[in-house]
């Protein structure tokens, strides 16, 4: 369908690094078109030098998040019809992260903060011991499961004004991961993890704006996870386990 009457989208795409400018492209509108389709069309048909990142195209890998009309989105599962405004799309790299080039943000600070938040599983048993039986119905497991579907896309991190205001803040994803592990009965790293959550970059930065919850493509609620960490760290502080 490439008739002269086809509808076009006015797409402005960020070009450059920290300093740069928007470049305009006219992209044909298609049915069921995603924002990633639009970016790919530009790269294949208009400018092959456009840098962007994607892998799975089906909402599993979490690598294609970008800023679309002012808000972070997973572009492979975001339909143009949902975000287009007056026939226009403005696409930029994720916010709150350094820009590598064009639409590719440097995710290093995001993942470094997962480490700082002790967002890694600390086993309480070795491989030589028998597997621990965990009931999926237990309250702890359900709390751990509630926060576990994160795909590390960075949307919540880019949507968080508190990250913008406090560069040391770990952000919603890292703390959501921390909360999942705090509830994991197989994990043995909670004291260190709660100390991290109670540090200057930790959960007490959060103002419950809920932008993370509003924009999380997986429907997770990091604000609720962070609230859980606030309770647990306060209990640990009052008991004298952390200072």
């Amino acid at each position, binding site marked *: 369908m490439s008739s002269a009457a086809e509808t076009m989208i006015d797409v402005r795409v960020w070009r450059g690094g920290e300093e740069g400018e928007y470049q305009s492209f006219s992209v044909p509108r298609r049915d069921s078109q995603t924002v990633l389709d639009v970016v790919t069309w530009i790269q294949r048909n208009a400018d092959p030098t456009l840098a962007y990142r994607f892998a799975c195209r089906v909402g599993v890998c979490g690598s294609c998040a970008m800023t679309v009309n002012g808000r972070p989105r997973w572009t492979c599962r975001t339909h143009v019809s949902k975000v287009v405004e007056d026939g226009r799309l403005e696409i930029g790299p994720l916010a709150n992260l350094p820009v590598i080039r064009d639409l590719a943000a440097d995710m290093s600070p995001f993942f470094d903060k997962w480490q700082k938040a002790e967002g890694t599983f600390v086993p309480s048993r070795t491989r030589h011991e028998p597997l621990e039986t965990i009931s999926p119905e237990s309250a702890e497991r359900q709390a751990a499961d509630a926060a576990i579907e994160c795909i590390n896309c960075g949307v919540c991190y880019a949507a968080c004004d*508190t990250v913008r*205001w*406090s560069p040391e803040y770990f952000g919603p994803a890292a703390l959501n991961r921390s909360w999942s592990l705090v509830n994991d009965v197989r994990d043995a790293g909670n004291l260190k993890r709660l100390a991290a959550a*109670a*540090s*200057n970059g*930790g959960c*007490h*930065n959060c103002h419950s704006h809920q932008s993370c919850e509003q924009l999380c493509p997986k429907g997770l609620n990091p604000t609720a996870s962070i609230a859980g960490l*606030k309770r647990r*760290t*306060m209990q*640990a*502080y*009052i008991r004298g386990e*952390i*200072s």
Partner: protein
Amino acid sequence: MSAVRLYTWQRLTAVLMVPLIAVHLIVIIYATNRGLSAAEILGRTRGSIAWGLYYSLFVVAASIHGAIGVRGVAREWLGWRETALDRLMWIFGVVLLVLGLRAVIAVVAL
């Protein structure tokens, strides 16, 4: 001062102040309705142990809560360093506490 310590004190004083502020709002509306005057205020407060305790507690809680709150805003929006923030918090908190307790003495004890 550590984040969790600041948070705990700020939230504990917040919970404490919920009923205190509710009473304060009722008193404000009631007293305003009767026409605000020094005689009206002082007639209620002077020599009253209950009002003295109420306002003393209120001043202490508000000083802690306000000082930590101002520290948090300065941290995020002014980007101050931790030592400067602690100094700001203590100075503001002590000023509030001294002025507040002085006001309590003025309306209750004299």
